[in-house]
Structure formats: C-alpha cells, structure tokens
C-alpha cells in the first residue's frame, strides 16, 4: 500500500490528536481525579499509536505506547496524578509534536527520546513495584487492551462454557493480512474454511458480513472453540498465503466474563460492536453522553490545502480587478444591456467574495490553543500562580491575519506574565488572591476583530515609564509633563524601551513590544493600552477581518488618484474655505462641534500643481484613528470601490503615509493612504 497519499492526513490528524492531548492534560492537571479526561487522552494517544505504527513511524509509535502505559496506569488508579508525572507526559507530547513536525517537513520522525522513555518507564514501574498485587491486574488489563476486540453476549458465553466442560479450548485469534493484500475477502474465506475444519467459530470482529465485503483494515479477530492445540491452529493459519501474523490466545470462561464487566473505554475503542448485549448498549449511551469529538464529526467538512485557497483568492483578486475595469468601460459606453450584465456580475462576484473570505476564516482558537501550555510552563519558570482564561476562541479571522498574530500575542502574554502579574507573596501582601488571572478575549465588532489581554497584576507605573523614557531619550521632560496616561502607556511599545529592572529570559530584552506594535500596525490594526496601577492592565488589539480585499473611497488630487480605506472614514463633507480656522498654526474646522485639524493631502504628498487655485469649497474626508480625527482635504471624490490590496514591493518597503497600492479598472496604480500615519 502506498503510504505517501495518507501522509498528509496522518500529519493533520496527529497534530489534532496531540493538541487534544495537550488540552486534556491541562484539564487533567486542574481536575486530577477526573478519569474521564484520562480516558480522552488515552483515546487520542491510542489512535496516534495506531496511526504511526501503520505509517511505519516506529519511534513515534513506541513513545506513544510508553505514554499510553502510564496513562493506563493512571486510568486504573495505579498511579495518582501529580505534577511531576504530568511534566513527563508533557515532555513526551512535546517530543511527539517535534517528531510529527519532523515528518511533516520531510524527515523520518526519528528523535532521541530515551530520557523521556526512561522517565515514563520509571513512573510506570515505580508505582507498580509498590502496589504488588496491582502488577498482575495491570498485566491483565494490558492484555485486555490488546486482545479485547471481542465481546460476547450471554448466548455465546454459554456456548463457550459448555464446550469447556466437554474439554474443548477457546482461542482468540488475531489474523493480520499483508498490507498490500489484494483479495482480502478470499483470504478471509480461506482462513474461515480452515477454522471451520478445526472447530467452531463463535464470533468474529469485524462481523463475517463485514469481512466478506472487505470492510476491515488488515487485521481481524475470531474466537474459535476447538480441541486442537493452539500451536497447530497457528501453524495451519500461517499456511494461508498473504497472512503475515497469527496470534492465538487461549482464554478461559472466567476471563471472558470478567472482561464483559471491564472498563467501557476498552470496548469503546472497539470499532465494531456487533453484539447486542445489554453491556454494549450502556457503552453506547456512555459515548453519547461524553462530550467527545464525535459530535464534531457530524459537520460535513473537507480538508482543503491552504495553498489552494490562496490560489483561489489570487484568482479572485484578478477577477475583482477586471470587474473594476468592466465597470468603468460600461459606464463610458452607456449601454443599458451591458450595464445590466455588469451589475449582475458585480453582485455575483460580491457573493463569491463573501464565500471565499469566509472559507479562509479560521477560528482564533488555532492560535490560542497553544497558550495554556505556554502559560503553565512560564508560570512555573517564574514561580507565579497564573490562571489563563480564554474567552471567544471561536471568533473567526482571516488566515493571513491569524498567521501574523501569533507571535505578537506570545510577546504580550509573556509580558503580562513577567511584568504584569506579581509574585504570589506580593499579591497576598496587596490583598489580592494568590493566583493571578490573565484573560485572553476575542470578539467581533463591526468590520473588526478585537483581541484583548487583561491581567489583574501590578499595572503600569506612569512615573517609572516616564523616567525611563526620558533617560532613554525617547521623550523630553517637557513633553512628558503634558502627556496623557494613554500616551505614556504607549511609550512602553517604543523601540529600545524595557522597564523590567532585571533582564529575564522571558521578556525584557526591549525588543518585544515595539515589534508587537509594528506587526499589528502592518496588519492594519491598532494596539491600545489601558492600565490602573495596582489593579492591572488591558492590552487591546483591533484588527481588520481581512487583509486582501478592502473597500476604499477613491479621491482625486490633480491628476493623481488615491484610495482611502472606508474603515477609517467617518464621513465626507464639502466645506467653505471661509470656515477654516487657524489654531496654533494648524488649520482646523469646526465639525459637528468638534475641532478637527485639516491635512492638505496635496501638500503632504507634494502633488505637482499647475497653479495655486483658491477654491471656494473644499472636499474633506473626515478620518479617524482611535478617538482622534482629521480632515483630509482633496480635490474631488471619485467614488467607493472594492479594491485588492497590493504591496509596493520590497524595494519601497516603508513609504510615509502610504500603506500599499491597488490596480484600478483602467490598469493604473492608485496608492492607498495610511490614515494612521497622518493623524498625530
């Protein structure tokens, strides 16, 4: 069987299972007595083991197996969950992640995990040695795990017990076929024929019907009542061609009966429950009650390679450009039928755009879910007690934004943990609960997504920040006196600024927060900081829903066309030039009771003018950045349009007040105005 076609699926699913392991382990740490969680982890680990063994990644399978043993012991209450044990399991999961990543990047998935394996073994053995009687029980459980593929109803049990009385043996036989076996049904038939000659087949898993229609992988299990010795049975079966392995186990009726009362998980793992015993019904109910991933499987989804979505998006961008071109042509031609068609096309492509954009939406969960583990580790490193709350992980964002937002958030969380939340003893002294709370919140609002990080730590000390900023030459002391709290807080994101007195591993190299700020701004977002000293801080990030296609207002200055993103426009206005007032050498207007400074775009962009014209009326676009406003003076408004955001290329990486470019319907390039840079 060619494995490479499954490789992608293997990697994806492994990642999912590892993530599930991580999440559940964290959950387990909070509720160490909840065995349901252990079962969840066990199930993920078990699936992972099976998959990696099938794919031939022995190291992965091996390590998972060791991990599984420990989990099994926990599940059977041989080992009590402790942080030390969880640490080892976490390390094992880390190793597994690294292995899967290695496989994903074309490696072999090999990795030196002997230390972790030793630890796992030690945990398993150490506990087993203490509980002597449990050892036997554990081995039985293990056996049950491997060969518990068959369960029997009462009738079958009666048959078995009766044949035992008559001196027959019962064997459970696992038959494995070669992976490239072509005629599985035929082999099954041959095996069964042999078995029937030797005795009676009581039961098979999967059922005979499924076996005959080849609805099984490469392995199946049968139980046989016969008077032949186990060795003979095995040898005879091995004669069937394409059978690679036959394992024969002798079972007693007591074992079988006790197994029927065994833990439900073992049976849950069994994929085909063809028996109708009351026991199994109970299991089925269990499964529906448990909040397993099975519920999610109900959604009909397919996996699509992200590259294909990107290609689709690029093609659609081309289409949007051509749509713009068509629109401008049709408006020139003034042909009613053409107009109608273009209008229809515009509507349809609008719908198409919505669908493509939602297809590219990813839940922020994909970024958030790595934080709990990180916080746990950091809190331990820093000797702090921290509870991370995540709210709104289901909020969706464009994939391009998701890709970029991870690192800034890591910085912010590290910062909150290191500088924000105080040490437990200080917290207690300040009358706060010993455990600090960090809330990571995501929600939609209008065309934006907000991600907030709130901690109940020390907050920001205004004077400390100002002194530092002055000593670093970021602000002058005169400027410092007039700054608002918000402005002061923003200083901590200036480059070369770090307030921690000692430099720690976690944060405090002074490169973190300014990178955060510039990354977020490059995504078209803002970051604001709110803080009350002694109470905590709130970092709020505002991000656009998508980056590639935006609505803009096109404006004209002389011959040049500029695009202003609608997201920052409040409204447009025509004002009389006599309404312009002067305040501190700055031209302002009184706009709805607010004083709004004017920015003459022709000056800022030094647009070449033939003659200085003194128009009686001025066209003004009122834009905002946070709660500040400005009026951009332009020559005329052209109209609103959907445009595709393009970069100016790497050569012109940072041009003042220009955030990018777009291609208009006429094939010309228009520059996109970065309003944030224009508002001081």
């Amino acid at each position, binding site marked *: 069987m060619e494995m490479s076609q499954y490789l992608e699926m293997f990697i994806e699913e492994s990642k999912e299972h590892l993530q599930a392991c991580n999440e559940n382990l964290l959950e387990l740490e909070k509720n160490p007595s909840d065995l349901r969680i252990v079962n969840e982890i066990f199930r993920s680990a078990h699936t992972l083991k099976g998959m990696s063994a099938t794919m031939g990644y022995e190291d992965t399978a091996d390590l998972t197996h060791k991990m599984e043993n420990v989990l099994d012991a926990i599940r059977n209450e041989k080992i009590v969950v402790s942080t030390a044990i969880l640490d080892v399991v976490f390390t094992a999961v880390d190793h597994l992640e690294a292995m899967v990543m290695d496989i994903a990047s074309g490696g072999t998935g090999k990795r030196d995990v002997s230390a972790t394996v030793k630890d796992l073994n030690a945990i398993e053995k150490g506990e087993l040695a203490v509980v002597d009687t449990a050892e036997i029980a554990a081995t039985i459980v293990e056996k049950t795990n491997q060969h518990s593929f068959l369960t029997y109803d009462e009738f079958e049990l009666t048959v078995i017990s009766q044949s035992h009385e008559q001196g027959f043996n019962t064997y459970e036989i696992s038959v494995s076929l070669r992976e490239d076996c072509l005629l599985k049904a035929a082999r099954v038939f041959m095996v069964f024929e042999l078995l029937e000659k030797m005795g009676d087949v009581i039961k098979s898993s999967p059922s005979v019907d499924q076996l005959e229609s080849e609805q099984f992988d490469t392995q199946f299990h049968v139980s046989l009542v016969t008077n032949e010795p186990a060795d003979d049975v095995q040898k005879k079966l091995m004669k069937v061609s394409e059978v690679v392995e036959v394992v024969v186990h002798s079972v007693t009726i007591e074992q079988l009966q006790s197994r029927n009362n065994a833990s439900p998980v073992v049976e849950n793992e069994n994929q085909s429950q063809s028996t109708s015993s009351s026991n199994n019904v109970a299991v089925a109910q269990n499964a529906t009650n448990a909040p397993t991933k099975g519920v999610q499987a109900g959604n009909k989804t397919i996996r699509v390679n992200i590259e294909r979505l990107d290609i689709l998006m690029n093609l659609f961008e081309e289409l949007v450009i051509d749509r713009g071109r068509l629109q401008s042509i049709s408006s020139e031609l003034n042909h009613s039928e053409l107009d109608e068609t273009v209008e229809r096309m515009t509507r349809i492509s609008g719908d198409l755009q919505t669908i493509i954009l939602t297809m590219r939406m990813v839940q922020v969960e994909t970024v958030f879910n790595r934080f709990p583990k990180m916080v746990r580790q950091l809190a331990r490193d820093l000797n702090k007690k921290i509870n991370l709350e995540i709210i709104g992980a289901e909020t969706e964002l464009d994939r391009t934004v998701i890709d970029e937002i991870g690192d800034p958030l890591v910085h912010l969380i590290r910062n909150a943990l290191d500088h924000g939340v105080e040490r437990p003893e200080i917290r207690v002294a300040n009358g706060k609960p010993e455990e600090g709370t960090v809330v990571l919140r995501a929600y939609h609002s209008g065309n934006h997504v907000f991600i907030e990080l709130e901690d109940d730590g020390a907050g920001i000390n205004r004077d400390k920040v100002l002194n530092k900023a002055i000593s670093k030459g970021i602000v002058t002391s005169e400027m410092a006196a007039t700054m608002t709290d918000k402005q002061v807080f923003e200083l901590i994101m200036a480059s070369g600024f770090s307030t921690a007195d000692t430099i720690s591993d976690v944060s405090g190299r002074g490169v973190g927060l300014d990178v955060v700020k510039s990354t977020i701004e490059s995504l078209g977002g803002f970051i604001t900081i709110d803080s009350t000293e002694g109470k905590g801080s709130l970092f709020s990030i505002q991000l656009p829903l998508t980056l590639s296609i935006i609505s803009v207002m096109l404006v004209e200055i002389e011959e040049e066309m500029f695009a202003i993103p609608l997201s920052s426009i409040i409204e447009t206005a025509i004002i009389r030039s006599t309404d312009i007032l002067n305040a501190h050498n700055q031209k302002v207007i009184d706009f709805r009771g607010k004083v709004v400074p004017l920015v003459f775009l022709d000056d*800022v962009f030094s*647009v070449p003018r033939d003659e200085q014209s003194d128009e009686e009326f001025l066209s003004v676009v009122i834009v905002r950045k946070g709660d500040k406003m400005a009026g951009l003076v332009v020559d005329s408004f052209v109209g609103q349009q959907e445009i595709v955001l393009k970069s100016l*290329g790497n050569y012109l990486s940072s041009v*003042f007040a220009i955030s990018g470019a777009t291609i208009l319907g006429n*094939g010309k390039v*228009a520059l996109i105005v970065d309003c944030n840079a224009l508002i001081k």
Partner: protein
Amino acid sequence: MTELKAMDDLKVIVFELMNKEYVIPVSQVQSIEKMMHITRVPRTPSFVKGVINLRGVVTPIIDLRERFNLQASEANEQSRMIMIKLEDMEVGLIVDAANDVLDIPLSAIEPQPEVVGSIESEFIGGVAKLERRLLVMLQLEKVLNPIKQVI
C-alpha cells in the same frame, strides 16, 4: 562545447545611458518593457519615479539617470524599462535604450576601472572591452541597496 561556452561567457543585456553602454547579466533581468503610465509615489527619493502595474504586480521604477546623478531627460520612443529581480526585490530601471544581448568572455572583464567618467565608481562592478566597445558592468546590489536607508 556549448557547456564550455556557458562557463566562459557571461550573457548580458546591453543598454544605453548618456551615450555610454552598460551591461547587466541576463540572469537578473526579467523583461524589458516600453514606457507606460507611472504612478508617482510621494516622499521617496527623486530617482524613484513611482510604481507601475506590471501584469498585475505593482513594481517600483527607478530612473537610472537620476540615480547616477546624470542630467535628467524626457522619456522618448527609445526609452525602456528593464525589469530586474534581485533576491526578493523586483524593480524596473529606466534607461535611454536597450538594444543588445551579448556574450562577453569572462576574460574580457577587468575588475576595477580607473576612469569611470561621471558615474560614481561604487556602482560599477567591472569594465569589459569588446573590440571597440567599452561596456560598463553595473553592480545592481549597490544600485538598489542604499535606498532602504534613505526612506
């Protein structure tokens, strides 16, 4: 034979600037375009003429005359934009004319020219003498680099 030739020769594009001939290795050239509408980008050095729409890609354009502090001139029928790609940068260079593709034997290239006229020598990687022609080889890295700090 052909392989040997490829080893010994450097295939270059020849272009003209102020009646002098310059060359760029063909491997760095993406295409040669006729002049088209250039959108000015404000607040950039004067030699950055702006950006063009090159088949859907927004590409910056540099006037090589102004880059070398030569006398500026109006674009005419002969003017061309040589689109080059250097590492991850794609830039177009405006030249007076682009008229030839040549194989220069590596042996004909002399490293450091003594007299280079009005062009600052920092942009020049070497000079090739070919019969009667004097070809100046440009160092594109130098031509394109400093702007990053300028802005």
